[in-house]
């Protein structure tokens, strides 16, 4: 599943047709949801499918289809500095890897209340969200409200 998600991510950033690219990103999101399931994060997997694959990707597809696709396809899909970009991407991946190795993989010890999961991942997350995380939760709702208003203001047709 990891290999499949890497493959679909690669295809997503290299396809020429934006719609094909979108569909590969959809495959990537579904695979990541599967990885979340394997990691025991059921609620996160559900949110991934609903929010990412359902809402965000549909939004992207609508905007893509508003645009002039054939005109896009004849353009070069990469700028002429793409080797530099590839180097930067590789560098980031190596950096993340080195940071992990240098820090020494986080000690597997101290299993702090590991298996609260059996009683339902959703209940535990909800408790955490409305317990210690209630302030960030409210701030997230504020961010979303600001984004809604901002999007409406930006995309509105100027009156006269």
């Amino acid at each position, binding site marked *: 599943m990891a290999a499949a998600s890497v493959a679909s991510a690669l295809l997503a950033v290299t396809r020429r047709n934006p719609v094909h690219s979108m569909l590969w990103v959809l495959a990537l999101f579904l695979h990541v949801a599967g990885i979340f399931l394997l990691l025991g*994060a059921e609620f996160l997997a559900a949110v991934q499918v609903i929010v990412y694959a359902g809402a965000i990707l549909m*939004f*992207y597809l609508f905007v893509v289809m508003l645009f002039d696709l054939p005109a896009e396809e004849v353009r070069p899909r990469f700028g002429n500095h793409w080797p530099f970009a590839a180097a930067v991407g*590789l560098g980031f991946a190596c950096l993340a890897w080195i940071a992990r190795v240098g820090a020494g993989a986080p000690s597997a010890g101290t299993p702090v209340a590991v298996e609260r999961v059996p009683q339902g991942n959703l209940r535990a997350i909800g408790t955490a969200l409305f317990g210690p995380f209630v302030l960030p939760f409210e701030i997230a709702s504020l961010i979303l409200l600001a984004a809604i208003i901002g999007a409406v203001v930006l995309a509105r047709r100027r009156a006269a």
Partner: protein
Amino acid sequence: MIVPVNVVLALSAVLFGIGAFGFLARRNIILMLISVEVMLNAVNVSLAGFSRHLGDLRGQVLALFVIAVAAAEVGVGLGLVIALNRNKPGAAVGDLTKLKW
């Protein structure tokens, strides 16, 4: 099924690298935004991996916040794209030279 945390972190690093490459190399503004989504997803994978590894749910809660911020980013970003598209059709960042002197 036990997933080793090393594999999860390697996957996250690779996905993040792909996203960074896509963001820097693509010349289509929508696909650049999609690459940002790929990077955010890579971070979510690593958060979920750590959450599993350390037996702490805070990682998953943080991943939820990342998803919320990603949704906000998509809304504002695509609003900007539509506004730009109204002035100048097309989605290629090379054409957006209005703020350049």
